[in-house]
């Protein structure tokens, strides 16, 4: 991979997060760079999802700050995160089963008119959204059985591809993928991995959460390991240090 640029596009500094008695994030700091896939690793309950949910505006941080392109930003809602260029594909797949792929793409940021009305009262430009979504699907070589059917009728891989494709359209800085291949078979995973490569090539900082070490070694330029809410290591993953990485994740000595 190319040399990472000097300034991170995203930095989280000294993040602390509690859920009642659970101390989910303990002074975690990470940085993400453009054109780089950062793997976020850790065992179940390590705090990976919590960290990305704080970045994408679902949970507020108790302490610490989020810096985007050198500016400290307050991300108070998912909408705010997306406004500042952070797109997230959630672990639990935030698609709308009852909507078509194009409707899913634009949900929450519909193309609509007239501009002087508040967004909710505008009229949808259905055809424009269909065409643009179709163009993206085409560009990303995602194969869908029918473009005008609700996504409920599509397979796990197709649905995940739609979710990732949606992120590609709107991502301007950071794309976060929380276990995007967790429920997928080999062939369907491959499709999603290809999309991730494409996201990186388009200059995004990609943060990838996964339990699949093969994917990490194949894709990730850097890996950060969390254990019980603490950052316990950071390295460039490759075949040689795979065992060390796994040891870090589970907390065993090498």
């Amino acid at each position, binding site marked *: 991979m190319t040399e990472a640029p000097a300034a991170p596009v995203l930095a989280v500094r000294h993040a602390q997060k509690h859920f009642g008695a659970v101390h989910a994030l303990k002074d975690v700091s990470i940085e993400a760079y453009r054109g780089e896939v950062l793997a976020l690793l850790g065992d179940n309950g390590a705090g990976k999802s919590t960290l990305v949910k704080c970045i994408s505006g679902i949970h507020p941080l108790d302490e610490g700050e989020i810096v985007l392109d050198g500016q400290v930003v307050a991300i108070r809602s998912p909408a705010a995160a*997306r406004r500042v260029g952070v797109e997230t594909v959630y672990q639990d797949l935030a698609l*709308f089963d009852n909507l078509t792929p194009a409707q899913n793409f634009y*949900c929450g940021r519909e193309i609509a008119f007239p501009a002087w009305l508040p*967004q909710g009262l505008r009229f*949808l430009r259905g055809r424009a959204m269909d065409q643009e979504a179709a163009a993206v699907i085409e560009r990303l070589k995602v194969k869908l059985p029918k473009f005008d059917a609700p996504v409920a009728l599509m*397979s796990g891989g197709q649905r995940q591809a739609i979710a990732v494709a949606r992120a590609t359209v709107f991502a301007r800085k950071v794309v976060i993928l929380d276990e995007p291949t967790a429920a997928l*078979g080999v062939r369907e995973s491959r499709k999603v991995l290809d999309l991730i490569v494409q996201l990186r090539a388009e200059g995004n900082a990609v943060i990838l959460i996964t339990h699949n070490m093969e994917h990490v070694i194949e894709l990730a330029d850097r890996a950060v390991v969390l254990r019980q809410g603490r950052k316990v290591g950071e390295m460039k993953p490759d075949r040689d240090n795979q065992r060390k990485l796994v040891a870090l994740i589970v907390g065993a000595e090498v």
Partner: protein
Amino acid sequence: MAEQPEMAVLRSRGDGLFARASVIPLALRLLSIGPVLILVLLAVLFSLLTPNFLKPGNLGNIAAQTAVIAIVAIGQHLVILTRGIDLSVGANLALATVIGGLVFRSFDSAILVMLAMLLSGSAVGAVNGLVYVFGRLPHPFIITLASLSICRGLALELAIGHTTMRGMPELITTIGGASTFGVPNSLFVVLIVTGLAVLMAKAMVWGRWIYAVGGNPQAALGMGIPVRAVLVSTYVISGLCAGIGAIMLAGRTAASSPLYGNLLELDTIAAVIIGGASFLGGRGHIGHALVGAVMIGVIRNALNLLNVDVFFQMIALGLIIVMAVEADVLRNHLEARARVVQASRTQ
């Protein structure tokens, strides 16, 4: 070719007919037009059984009797789209007619009386929605049930012992009870309300948000949709529809009553479900509520013409609801199978 073994697995699981991938879209399409199909079949059947059924006068009757259910069912449909339920519509309607009747005693103004009914209906809806959302209730069942009781009690209280209060301004009796060129005016109101609801649901961003909230509330929040406002709005619209229903019913009877709208919540929920909307939220066209309401009207009317007693009518309606819900279950099952088939086809 790679899909052969997987298809064999599907078939061996004994899902019989539906293991054939091509059958699923066909079955889903049939299910989606099913209610309209059944309505047409019922109409044909009834017109054969009783010659009076298709007479213009009787069709006008059906329209007039169905108008209230249809309008209130449209509001109910929006609520059900968001996975909710509004049990208060009947009592809400009764309260609105009583308030309209009281206003009429003091002011002989059709506009004021109508405004009072619309306002009363929407206000009850707003309270339902606000308490549900901001009281963090797990389900709107409870609050709208409480609201049913409160509205009915309030209506009886305000009517001070009267079961009917005679009199409505002429404009209102014209809207609710008269006909133009043999077509009941209430039918025009139904069409206008339906048109506006379809416009909102299908052409406007707000409507898309209603479907999104119903389809996946968690994701809607994640996408920055104002979920709470969307939820509250559906209850307000449902209440507003109850208010419009109040004008229609008070107009048709030239009276108001705290007993009006009894079991209207059941009729409207039945209309929505029979019409083919889903309790799982986010699925169904506004037209479904209309088809369901007409179906209820047609069945009641025909069974009346055939002198079938009213108890049997209730049993028939109940059976039809069960069939409609089963169709919904079948639809979800088919969609799940469609996903499996899609996965096995990925090259």
